[in-house]
């Protein structure tokens, strides 16, 4: 904002506070105007004039003050321009050579303002960090889990499986040998050729339509499921599905997720419970696999069945058996942990149709296998 630098132009007066030697130390109210490039300051008693080497500077509280400073005969003089219209008049009459200083002064107070806002923003962010972390935890948990799981070696995973195995042995009657175990192992081995895991095949004596996988290649099939399967292919379908869970590391992902969410929540919410690990492991037994994981396991299981030349129709048949459970009957365990739906069965059926064999006949005496199991009360009947 340059004035028309006609030196004689009379500039409008403005007000401010004047500090000069001999005046009251708190400053005196004064008015001033530019004349011939110099500031004429008028106090109640006398008139002052600025020196040619006067400079513009900002200062005061929060650098909000604008002053013209010059060295008088007896000491420093400062004229602090009032805010508002006075600043405009001051700028209008400002000699050209002071313009850069005037701008610098404006920048100084703007900088203070900017930095202050930055501080506030940083402070607000700091207050929001736990909240943001929580939101991130909830929304990005799958990505984080995927990344973590990628970095867990298979041996470590197998150790986790051992823990689950030990727990299973403690809680249920595990059949260590017999036709049923042999049958499960035979089918399982056909489905897991070339796997990175050393699989452990278990059959537990429990009249439930259920099977589950623990991290590191532990597959547990309930005797109730073997009883309900009409053909070995139907059982193989379930085993393939469980193997797929193991190969896709769904169990580990679930565990990391459960642990991570709990630990994250504990850290963020400040309620660290030492039982998080135990809870994660027991939680694994009734882990609710997400729909996505189920469909991925269906597809992978199907692929493995086909690769092992086992007729995948059994898989779809068994699914139908599950879905068509008449109401009023206790929902089979496999359904609650492996959410089945009409849609899923239909999709599976369609996918199976695409494969036409030829299929191997599984070298199993299925009747003998079922007979070897404890004559459990018929699954699904009221208990």
């Amino acid at each position, binding site marked *: 904002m340059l004035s028309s630098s006609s030196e004689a132009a009379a500039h409008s007066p403005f007000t401010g506070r004047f500090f000069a030697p001999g005046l009251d*130390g*708190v*400053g005196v*109210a004064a008015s001033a105007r530019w004349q011939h490039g110099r500031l004429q300051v008028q106090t109640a008693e006398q008139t002052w004039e600025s020196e040619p080497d006067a400079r513009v500077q900002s*200062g*005061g*509280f929060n*650098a909000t*003050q604008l002053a013209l400073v010059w060295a008088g005969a007896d000491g420093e003089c400062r004229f602090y321009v009032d805010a508002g219209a006075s600043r405009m008049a001051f700028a209008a009459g400002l000699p050209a050579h002071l313009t850069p200083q005037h701008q610098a002064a404006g920048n100084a107070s703007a900088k203070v303002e900017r930095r202050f806002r930055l501080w506030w923003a940083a402070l607000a962010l700091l207050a929001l960090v736990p909240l943001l972390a929580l939101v991130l935890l909830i929304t990005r948990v799958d990505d984080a889990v995927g990344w973590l799981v990628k970095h867990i070696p298979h041996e470590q995973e197998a150790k986790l499986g051992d823990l689950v195995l030990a727990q299973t042995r403690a809680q249920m009657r595990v059949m260590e040998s017999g036709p049923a175990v042999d049958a499960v192992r035979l089918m399982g081995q056909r489905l897991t050729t070339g796997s990175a895991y050393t699989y452990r095949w278990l059959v537990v004596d429990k009249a439930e339509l259920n099977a589950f996988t623990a991290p590191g290649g532990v597959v547990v099939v309930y005797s109730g499921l073997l009883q309900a399967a009409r053909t070995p292919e139907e059982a193989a379908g379930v085993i393939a599905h469980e193997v797929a869970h193991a190969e896709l590391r769904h169990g580990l992902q679930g565990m990391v997720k459960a642990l991570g969410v709990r630990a994250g929540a504990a850290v963020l919410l400040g309620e660290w419970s030492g039982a998080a690990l135990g809870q994660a492991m027991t939680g694994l037994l009734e882990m609710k696999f997400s729909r996505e994981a189920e469909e991925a396991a269906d597809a992978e299981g199907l692929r493995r069945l086909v690769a092992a030349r086992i007729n995948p129709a059994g898989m779809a048949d068994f699914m139908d058996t599950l879905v068509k459970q008449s109401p009023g009957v206790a929902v089979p365990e496999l359904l609650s942990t492996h959410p089945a739906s009409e849609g899923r069965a239909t999709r599976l059926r369609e996918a199976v149709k695409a494969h036409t064999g030829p299929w191997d006949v599984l070298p199993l005496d299925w009747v003998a296998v079922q007979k070897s199991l404890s004559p459990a009360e018929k699954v699904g009947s009221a208990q």
Partner: protein
Amino acid sequence: MAMDVVDYEIFGSEMQYVEVELDPGEAAIGEAGVMMYMQEGITMDTIFGDGSQQGGFFGKLMGAGKRLLTGEGLFTTVFENSGSGKQRVAFAAPYPGKIVPMDLSQLGGTIICQKDSFLCAAKGVALGIAFQKKLGVGLFGGEGFIMQKLDGDGMAFVHAGGTLMERTLAPGETLRVDTGCVVAFQPTVDFDIQFVGKVKSAIFGGEGLFFATLRGPGKVWLQSLPLSRLANRIILSAPAAGGRSADQGSLLGAGVLGGLIGGGSNDE
């Protein structure tokens, strides 16, 4: 804005009170809970804000919101002489110290003061909030971050703890002060909170990590005994209180790290 002109008299030496004389129709505003006595013709009214806003409801709300930030009440008490003849109302200082009368018209119309120091003023003086924006690390300084701004041209009274020191700084003259000891200063004074950078002295010496640097020109008012120091001493020597020492300006006591180390700094 028509200011109410008040005559006043300050009584006492270490525990003071100020008696304000109001002409009919004049009024004074006081911080809640500092009124000591009043004569018959004075009526008390509690208003939203500080009574200086000319704006509508929204302006009042803004003013009140700012007051909330400085930790004061949303409401101000107005003492108006609605009788005939001069009447008096007195306001007492809340703790040992000195009451500082300030004629805002003499001081350029604005004073920045420590947020707890305002006592009372003529009606028409606006109480605003003024953040110390040249923060940097001063954010942890505790005191001196949120200040109060008094605007107007009437009388205002602020309270300084302990002994008062008034100092008029020449242009460029500087004074380094413990942040808690600043009571008030003119806006021409450059007020900067600086990190002293001697963590050792902050932890073991109990001196603040932060100092306020005041640079003239203008007048500054300092107090020898900030309320926080007094409270700190009292709590430290009161076994029943079991409070943590809250040393102004030191990280240990400012509540930032207080929980970590228990704030066992001694204040001297």
